[in-house]
């Protein structure tokens, strides 16, 4: 289990590290040994939950967006945001 554990921890930490776009060194700098141990333990104690962790939220399946012309109002007074109203 402990051997599995180490791989589990590394896998999980590596997945998290990749999700956050951190290098190996950045990870080692920002995650103390004690916390790396906890991640290993987590993988062992709760393999299902740690295996299910989603590192990015998958986009919705099929999108059929409607052009602005089909909406009653389109408000664009905020720099990066637009409000469409039906």
């Amino acid at each position, binding site marked *: 289990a402990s051997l599995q554990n180490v791989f589990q921890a590394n896998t999980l930490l590596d997945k998290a590290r990749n999700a956050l776009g951190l290098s190996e060194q950045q990870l080692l700098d920002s995650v103390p040994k004690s*916390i790396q141990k906890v991640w290993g333990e987590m993988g062992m104690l709760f393999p299902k939950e740690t295996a299910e962790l989603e590192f990015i939220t998958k*986009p919705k*399946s099929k999108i059929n*967006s409607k052009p602005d012309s*089909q909406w009653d109002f389109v408000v664009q007074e905020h720099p*990066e*945001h637009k409000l469409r109203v*039906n």
Partner: protein
Amino acid sequence: KIKDPKVLGIDPGVKQYTGYLDVEEEDKHFFYWFFESRNDPKNDPVILWLNGGPGCSSLTGLFFELGPSSIGPEIKPIYNPHSWNSNASVIFLDQPVNVGYSYSGSGGVSNTVAAGKDVYAFLQLFFKQFPEYASGQEFHIAGESYAGHYIPVFATEILSHPQEERSFNLTSVLIGNGLTDPLTQYSYYEPMACGEGGEPSVLEPEECEGMLDTLPRCLSLIESCYESESVWTCVPASIYCNNAQMGPYQKTGKNVYDIRKECQGELCYAEMKYMDEYLNLDVVKQAVGAEVDNYESCNFNINRNFLLAGDWMKPYHKAVTNLLNQGLPVLIYAGDKDFICNWLGNEAWSNVLPWKHAEKFQDQPVKNWISSTTGDKAGKVKNYENFTFLRIYGGGHMVPFDQPENALAMVNDWVKGSYN
């Protein structure tokens, strides 16, 4: 043109708006549904309603709790006489992205704070387009469960913008059966499950013992998360604590949202499947302009999102301290039959929250709350100045579902300014 949502007969007598807030650069699109007040929309307040999860749609609040209609077994609207738009206009907003009818073409939002700026932008644009709802009317944000994380952040975001910049005022916030101060609240799962919350124990003595044995480790992990607020310490805290403190109860098959019931179906309420079916009907999606092909009440992908797992144990109650110290009225209410965000934990963190009148709040007596609609002793209330804790008898996690009359009494009294 997209049809008028009124054709659906959800609340045929009132004006409604649906649509999307688009965050172009990030390809994020948030769905909302607005219902005018049935009473006097020119003077009645506006309430923004948010469900939690994280990853559950606010349309569950609309169709399962407090909206103008619920959806019955015939997959048709059933008029709700206790709707929260009886005396207020109500906006239901699906956030973060990929929740309900909201969507993102790319990877979704991974933590609450990123959504705060989008919610502020949504409100700015909405009230710019419809100034008739912000010409003197008050504006409140209400929500439940994980919205106990969202709302303190969103309110802080709103108040961080100078009044003269804003096209609306924030009058108060209401958080129902929330998760806001996990370090305090996680000590109350054992008492709630083991007979000290007003219902008989649902666990064997040794299981209760087991919860107490694992609690110190859980609390130390949450404390590390509070100190560092780093995902590296916060993710293990949420995985360890949720298994250790919620696992034993969940294994009983009991409904985590209502200790009196068994869990039926994916979200513990069999009735919830009717609204899922309804919101996946083409005629409904066409009438509201929905742009996703599949609606789910809760997106478990988001609930398992790694960064949200880290978000879970962060100390959002610190934002509540700042809101109270700025004078914003805050209502913390809790149905007393819920396990997962139980009233013991919500009462506890309200009592220990540091703010400028904390001691005076703690010294206040707990009084009977008399519902203004039923006249019943419907709960217990404690208030000092702009901070109120309310225990609601006989309510589960979704108080308006279990106690519709008293929930409406609560919100009507609160938005009228009866903060005590």
